[in-house]
């Protein structure tokens, strides 16, 4: 008997995990179901009340300013009162001050994660949503840097979602100019050694200069990929090219206050003058045009095509993707000039993506989303509704490094991580109790991948709760 796994692969590997009824919708035309999702508008989040990054950063800057003036006032008061007068009340006030910024930013982060989760549970275009997550992880920022806590979600909303069905070139530019990325990789203060500002500072015996962080990670992670043959000199030159890519509304006086707080602003006085050579090409443009030209070339370079193709193939085919599939996707990238829907079509067209169901071990995020979708769980307000990500080991927007979360099975299949999934599934099943009829859920969520062993184990379960635990911990539910 030959089973048709295609609908289960479409829903669980390409999508975010089947909703009840989804496999029926997919029917026998799995590729058509995926293809249809690539047509239509950009996958914006439905009305959520989430605010633009500019507003968030503007408010954060205002709070910071307030804190500074209160600190100054407090310091003045303490000095006036004389030594030894600082009191316990003073220190608890100080703590309250310190907490004001996180108290402003944290609820924004929670709301972003909730909106994203609600959308994932409901969406009829889960393959496009997975692609959003893919790019969000490709262009990762991490909230362990407080500067991006409030804007990690808006990077995805403002830079990634509008371009996920567009061109890689535009996606790249939107991301590198987004305040979250500039803040995360420290570019807003990188100063050309021969720029107007650096020279002015030098006269006052202050040194301002380059910060290589953004330039390096663009080359290494966002475009060419490590091993593409660029050198330290390329990194330094590119860092010079990117000087001036900054944000509006500095805290200093004079020209640094230009622009809208938190919005991308090219600051000519920070920019390193002159031509630069990056990855064997010369760039003699002035101002922001120089950086745009480099990004354009990087976006379309062959190593970039291979790098992106390898990551897509690893995500959708196997940890060690077949070279033929990588080549095919890379070719689609190059031939189309980075037209993303054509790249995605090449992924769907790879036979290898369909031949081995369950080749990928779910990440904690995959696992949790597939549970939410499979059981159509509501996402309540308040922080508890997103705690599952933390417990399972993938706190949202916190990969800890600009490389993003890893994407191989052995990065996620640890013993302790498995136990977390089992305990989480069981706690959830106990809470839901007998409220779910588990019997038909298996085939509905897993289609042809639903095994006889799991079917038998569910049939023998003593309670519906236990059956649900057994379903959510079944080997075929832990993989996609």
């Amino acid at each position, binding site marked *: 008997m030959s089973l048709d796994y295609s609908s289960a692969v479409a829903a669980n590997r390409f999508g975010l995990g089947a909703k009840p009824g989804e496999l029926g919708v997919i029917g026998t035309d799995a590729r058509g179901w995926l293809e249809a999702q690539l047509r239509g508008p950009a996958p914006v989040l439905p009305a959520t009340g989430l605010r633009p990054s500019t507003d968030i950063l503007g408010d954060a800057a205002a709070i910071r300013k307030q804190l500074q003036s209160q600190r100054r006032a407090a310091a003045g008061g303490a000095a006036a009162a004389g030594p030894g007068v600082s009191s316990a009340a003073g220190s608890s006030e100080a703590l309250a001050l310190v907490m004001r910024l996180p108290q402003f930013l944290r609820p924004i982060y929670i709301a972003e994660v909730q909106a994203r989760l609600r959308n994932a549970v409901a969406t009829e275009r889960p393959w496009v949503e997975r692609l959003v997550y893919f790019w969000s992880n490709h262009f990762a920022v991490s909230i362990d840097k407080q500067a991006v806590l409030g804007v990690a979600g808006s990077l995805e909303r403002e830079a990634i979602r509008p371009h996920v069905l567009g061109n890689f070139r535009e996606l790249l530019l939107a991301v590198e100019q987004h305040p979250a990325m500039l803040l995360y990789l420290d570019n807003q203060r990188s100063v050309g050694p021969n720029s107007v500002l650096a020279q002015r500072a030098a006269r006052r015996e202050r040194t301002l200069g380059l*910060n290589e962080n953004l330039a390096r990670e663009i080359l290494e992670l966002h475009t060419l990929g490590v091993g593409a043959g660029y050198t330290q000199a390329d990194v330094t030159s590119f860092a010079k090219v990117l000087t001036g890519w900054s944000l509006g509304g500095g805290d200093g006086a004079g020209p640094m206050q230009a622009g809208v707080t938190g919005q991308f602003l090219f600051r000519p006085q920070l920019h390193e003058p002159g031509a630069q050579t990056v990855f064997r090409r010369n760039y003699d443009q002035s101002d922001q045009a120089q950086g745009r030209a480099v990004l354009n070339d990087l976006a379309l370079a062959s190593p970039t095509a291979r790098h992106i193709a390898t990551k897509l193939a690893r995500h959708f085919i196997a940890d060690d993707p077949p070279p033929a599939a990588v080549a095919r996707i890379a070719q689609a990238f190059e031939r189309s000039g980075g037209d993303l829907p054509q790249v995605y079509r090449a992924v769907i067209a790879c036979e290898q993506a369909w031949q081995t169901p369950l080749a990928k071990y779910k990440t904690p995020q995959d696992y949790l989303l597939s549970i939410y979708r499979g059981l159509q769980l509501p996402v309540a307000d308040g922080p508890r509704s997103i705690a599952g990500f933390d417990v399972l080991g993938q706190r949202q927007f916190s990969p800890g490094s600009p490389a993003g979360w890893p994407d191989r099975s052995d990065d*996620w299949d640890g013993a302790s991580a498995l136990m977390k999934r089992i305990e*989480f599934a069981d706690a959830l099943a106990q809470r839901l109790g007998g409220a779910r009829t588990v019997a038909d859920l298996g085939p509905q969520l897993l289609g042809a991948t639903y095994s006889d062993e799991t079917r038998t184990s569910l049939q023998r379960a003593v309670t519906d709760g236990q059956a649900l*635990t057994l379903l959510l911990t079944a080997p075929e539910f832990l993989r996609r």
Partner: protein
Amino acid sequence: MYRSTHVPINRRSLLKLGLAAGGAALAARYSFAAPAASQSRFVFIIMRGALDGLSAVPPYADPDYARLRGELAIAAPSGTDGALALDGFFGLNPGLQFMHEAYGAHELLVLPAVATGYRERSHFDGQDVLENGMTQPHATQTGWLNRALTNLPSANRRGRESGVALAQNVPLVLLGSAEVASWSPSVLPDLDDDTMRRIADRYATDPLLARRLAEALATGSEQAEQASAPTMASEAAGGQAVQPVARSTAGRYTETVRTAAGFLRRDDGPAVAVFDTTGWDTHFNEGGAQGQLRTRLSVLDQSLRTLKETLGDVWPRTVVLLATEFGRTAAANGTRGTDHGTASAAFLLGGAVAGGRVLADWPGLSARALYQQRDLKPTLDLRSVMKSVLHDHLQISAGVLEHDVFPDSGTAPYIAGLLRSHEA
């Protein structure tokens, strides 16, 4: 048979290391291991993100240091924010109070200019090399420590697992054929035995899941009572405000260290524990005697004190290696931080370490001395240090070290004398 040369160069009493004996047969350079010093413990703490060695171990007496570092420079000992005195040339970052005490107690060996064989500047590849023990990233899917544990002599093998990762997933350095455990505190209620048995039955036909579940059950049940995890639990439960870095990180490290110690103290526990520390990637506002990096170092330092206290009578038989993937630029960058560099500092800490010394063939910080005119030049290969610990402390044989654990490491010879003499 000590073949490394102790050459007191000057009042810094630097130990001259390196490739002087380049032509000698490698095996001959190992000292003969004494009968197994049983029950040795080894802790490897990975400092992910590229630690700024020049701030952790400031060479305040180097004539180029203050100029290169500007406001990041840490001053000579004396004063409130000076370096903590070591040997008159190097100091320790003022956040490393416990490490400084350990130095005084001859339990800390400071290695100010080390690197792996990796010479590019990608964190991710650099960490891969730090963990795979080879010269190239992605050269193998196993870690040097696991390859060593595969050959652990029976005297140092107590329980089923010879190593434990204090993490949800096992890091590369511990991946391989030797059985290792991973452990991180759970915040969820235990399952009932019947459900667990049914899950185990279902996994019987799935080799990976069967193995992982067995590992989890073996480590989980025995650790449950030993490690209470209130700090991490409340953090992982979500909903907590993001704490000021120092507080939440301190809680996590302390918990991790206590748990590691719990494993290592057990009679049938693993000989080796590995865990990560993060946040060393200081491109912006790194700080000098005060500031971001000092705070992080101080948090780490406190957890090391906890480690010593919790290990108790096991501490004299313990070696802790702290190492990072590479160092940072010798000069400060334009945003009061430092960019990716080459050599960094590493530390050997513990009762079994022949400490109270700074071990450096110091390359200097003059423009000519810098690697590619920008980074501190490495003068000691981390693999030499790793070999020495594995050989003298865990009794891994020279043949295994040269052929299996660190192939192609001829340029990184074993060094004798890093550990106390009864160790080797």
